């Protein structure tokens, strides 16, 4: 690094600084407050990001009777909905979501998909796309609405627009009023493994049985909010649900040998469970390990039964935004209690024998683990049960109940021989943490999924990362750590996080990975754990059982953390800039003492050692005998003194300068500190704190964090100075030594520059240990390998 002297100039320098001509338009832009982008605060939503004094939301209570037909895989139901208009507005019609209608051959969902025919002359389309279209066109899906009636039995006018149904009211529903109406319907259940979706049935050929995961199955009230009015975005696939809270009483009639898992508490255990099962459930509540309610042997016996009769399971749920259930005669069932605040929650798992022995070992434990840790970061789990069901759906959440896919592999020649890969094991634990985590976000903190996928997925993925890291050391989390998002962040083909759910390119990275990473960076790097955890808990507490929008989250986290975060939301959520901070130069200075007797020799030494290599002529003439060597009488004053020699005139000038200085100035002048000036450039565009590791020649290391405000006057190039005592000599500097900011280019993070091996070189240099084999190696699952 260059080594020079620093001249201490008088304060006049500060005022002579030149400001950029366009300081607000460009350089000020990244730190501009968000007010002009966010909706104006009002009495419903405050400028602090909390619900306002006039906050309101609608309520919808449901009483439903539904019958499952196991022969034709259909549902027939009758829902009586009581809709309470808490808004200040008068409603002339109601909108109801019929999300099963996505399965209609002529639905937007079935027809909107732009087919991808390769345009390279090969005219190819994928089998998957073709089969799905063919099957989708044939499947007789969608809600068949038989009747919409008022309590007196009078038919109500209604019209259906794709997945939405409008019910026209004879008399407008005024603010504070409520009304009740009944919908009779039927729909065919889709085969999930063929048609996809967030629910459906799975057929098991071996034992000729069905397993049902039933969701988006009844007519649900569309959301009516202070921000959007009625939600009128159809369900086209990605943007999930936006719903109202309410109380449910659901009577589910199924074959008598089925076991039913559902949102809520079982209200008629005496009618549907054996005495033994009820006793086991009570034991489970007090147990600190899972207890079987239905054992493997019992489930295998049930598989063979074919009940002619039916049973009706009645579930009640308070203050939930949705209701889902699962039913099969194949289910094993285990449960254990977990403390949550003042109550004990029953954590329960339902799975076919195909899930063993992975599910009995990990599922219920994963639910308990999630509740323990999500409670710490948000609020106490408020519901009586938390359920994980194994079936066809890969991973999906509903209030109190989640559907999770991973299973072990079964050797069909010896069904007791079951193996699973590392990925399946951690995939199962992770997906259960994720889906149970969704019971908090968005099932309780009721964000609008149809508009903003990231608000539940990003936040939940962030907490999932924290919970996973508390499962075991080095838990292989797929998202959350800053370095995992680098390839995506570097790409210029991104869309901002603030993009509607349906229009996102690269869904997983955009709506899950990037926002989760951003929150983790806020916690670890920007705000600090203690303050961020406080702020996040405030957000969760203030908005539980309410409906926040992005502006509320942005405002509240800033308000509660006491940290200006507008620049962060602007950069990470509204742009596609990335972090790439380069350290371009390090300059080393010491103070010019102005004392001629100190500076003269220093200058001479510096001149000779640093600035003036001997010319080639000087080198070649080394042994030349010169005139002056032979005639020393030709020498005078100038031969004895070089330009660095000190004269009395210099000394007098120095003395009179010292007299003109104040005491503290004189002291500074005599300090023998090392001064380092670092030059940074912001290549990626995102402004971020600058994190530096400083290495000194005495072997010591120092971690230095420069605040993001370092960039506040110039967001492209900045220089900062540090002062270290005499003898503290810097040898190298590294930007972001722990890779905590997702800096996309580490090659410019070192000064002096380091030649870093490429990824490929690193891979070649690794002892060719077959990592793949390790990751693929299957676990022994026999009893004695525990």
């Amino acid at each position, binding site marked *: 690094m260059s080594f020079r002297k620093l001249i201490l100039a008088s304060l006049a320098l500060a005022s002579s600084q030149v400001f950029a001509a366009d300081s607000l338009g460009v350089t000020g832009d990244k730190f501009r407050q968000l007010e002009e982008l966010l909706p104006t605060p009002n009495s419903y939503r405050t400028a602090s990001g909390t619900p306002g004094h006039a906050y309101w939301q609608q309520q919808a209570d449901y009483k439903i009777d539904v019958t499952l037909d196991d022969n034709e895989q259909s549902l027939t139901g009758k829902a009586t909905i009581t809709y309470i208009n808490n808004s200040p507005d008068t409603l002339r019609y109601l909108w109801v979501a019929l999300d099963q209608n996505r399965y209609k051959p002529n639905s937007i969902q079935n027809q909107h998909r732009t087919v991808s025919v390769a345009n*390279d002359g090969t005219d190819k389309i994928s089998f998957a796309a073709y089969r799905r279209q063919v099957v989708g066109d044939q499947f007789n899906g969608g809600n068949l609405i038989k009747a919409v009636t008022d309590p007196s039995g009078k038919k109500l006018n209604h019209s259906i627009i794709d997945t939405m149904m409008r019910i026209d009211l004879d008399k407008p529903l005024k603010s504070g009023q409520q009304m009740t109406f009944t919908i009779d319907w039927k729909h065919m259940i889709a085969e999930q493994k063929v048609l996809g979706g967030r629910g459906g049935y799975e057929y098991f050929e071996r034992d000729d049985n069905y397993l049902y995961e039933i969701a988006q199955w009844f007519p649900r009230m569309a959301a009516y909010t202070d921000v959007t009015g009625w939600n009128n975005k159809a369900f086209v696939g990605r943007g999930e649900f936006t719903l109202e809270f309410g109380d449910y009483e659901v009577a589910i009639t199924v074959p008598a040998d089925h076991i039913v898992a559902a949102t809520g508490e079982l209200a008629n255990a005496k009618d549907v469970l054996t005495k033994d099962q009820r006793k086991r459930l009570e034991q489970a509540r007090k147990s600190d390990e899972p207890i079987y309610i239905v054992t493997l042997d019992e489930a295998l016996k049930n598989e063979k039964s074919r009940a002619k009769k039916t049973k009706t399971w009645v579930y009640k749920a308070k203050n939930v935004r949705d209701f889902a259930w699962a039913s099969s005669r194949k289910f094993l069932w285990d449960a254990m209690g977990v403390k949550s605040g003042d109550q004990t929650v029953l954590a329960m798992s339902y799975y076919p024998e195909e899930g063993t022995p992975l599910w009995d070992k990990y599922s219920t434990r994963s639910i308990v683990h999630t509740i323990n840790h999500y409670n710490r970061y948000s609020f106490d789990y408020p519901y009586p049960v938390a359920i994980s069901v194994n079936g066809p759906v890969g991973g999906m959440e509903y209030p109190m109940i989640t559907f999770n896919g991973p299973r072990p592999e079964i050797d069909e020649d010896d069904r007791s021989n079951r193996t699973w890969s590392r990925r399946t094991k951690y995939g199962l634990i992770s997906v259960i943490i994720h889906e149970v985590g969704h019971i908090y976000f968005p099932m309780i903190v009721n964000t609008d999924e149809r508009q903003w996928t990231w608000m539940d997925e990003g936040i939940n993925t962030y907490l999932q990362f924290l919970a996973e890291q508390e499962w075991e050391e080095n838990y292989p989390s797929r998202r959350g750590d800053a370095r995992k998002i680098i390839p995506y962040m570097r790409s210029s083909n991104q869309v901002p996080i603030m993009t509607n759910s349906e229009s996102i390119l690269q869904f997983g990275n955009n709506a899950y990975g990037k926002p989760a990473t951003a929150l983790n960076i806020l916690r670890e790097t920007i705000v600090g754990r203690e303050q961020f955890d406080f702020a996040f808990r405030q957000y969760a507490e203030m908005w539980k059982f309410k409906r926040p929008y992005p502006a509320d989250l942005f405002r509240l986290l800033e308000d509660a953390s006491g940290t200006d975060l507008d620049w962060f939301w602007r950069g990470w959520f509204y742009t596609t800039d990335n972090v790439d901070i380069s350290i371009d130069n390090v300059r080393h200075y010491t103070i010019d003492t102005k004392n001629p007797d100190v500076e003269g020799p220093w200058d001479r030494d510096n001149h000779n050692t640093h600035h003036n290599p001997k010319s080639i002529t000087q080198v070649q003439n080394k042994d030349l005998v010169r005139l002056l060597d032979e005639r020393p009488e030709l020498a005078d004053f100038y031969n004895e003194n070089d330009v660095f020699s000190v004269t009395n005139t210099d000394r007098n000038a120095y003395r009179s300068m010292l007299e003109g200085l104040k005491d503290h100035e004189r002291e500074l002048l005599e300090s023998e500190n090392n001064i380092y000036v670092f030059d940074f450039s912001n290549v990626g565009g995102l402004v971020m704190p600058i994190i530096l590791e400083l290495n000194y020649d005495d072997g010591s290391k120092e971690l230095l964090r420069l605040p993001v405000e370092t960039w506040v006057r110039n967001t492209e190039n900045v220089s900062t100075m540090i002062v270290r005592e005499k003898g503290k000599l810097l040898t190298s500097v590294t930007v972001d030594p722990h890779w905590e900011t997702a800096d996309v280019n580490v090659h410019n993070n070192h000064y002096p520059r380091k030649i870093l091996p490429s990824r490929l070189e690193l891979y070649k240099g690794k002892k060719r240990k077959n990592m793949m084999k390790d990751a693929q190696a299957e676990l022994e699952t026999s009893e004695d390998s525990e």
Partner: protein
Amino acid sequence: MRLTLLSLLLSTLLAVSATADAHRYHFGHIELTRNVNSGNLEIVHQYFTHDFEAVLGSLKDQRVSDYIAQHVQFIDDQGKELSATYIGTDTDVGNTYIYQEVINPTSKYVDVKFSTLMDKVEDQVNTLNVVNKNGDTVSFTFKFSTDRHRVTLP
């Protein structure tokens, strides 16, 4: 005109909807860099192990190498296919990295075909980043309908 149904490596069909777990990322990534010392073109692929295993089953070297050769091609400015040597695969629970190398290509540009995983998942989006010496990155988006781009070599 006749449509060709793209034949699949494995015959099973996957469910296609993006459920809330987004267990599959449907994200493929290639980074192209020029090694300053050797002049070789280094090709580093990244996929999500879950996505990749869903297509290939077990990740045996020969399978991966064959699959990549089939789905990723580089045609030089003379119209000849560059031979990209398969170096190896590195995989963990989350990510799978695949390494390839082209010895000192002199071509100014290459026509890249990058259709990894697209035979299985129609919303697969692949990104190729060309990282130039100064760190500048140029991104190309590959989808089922546009799985080729002309790319200036770093």
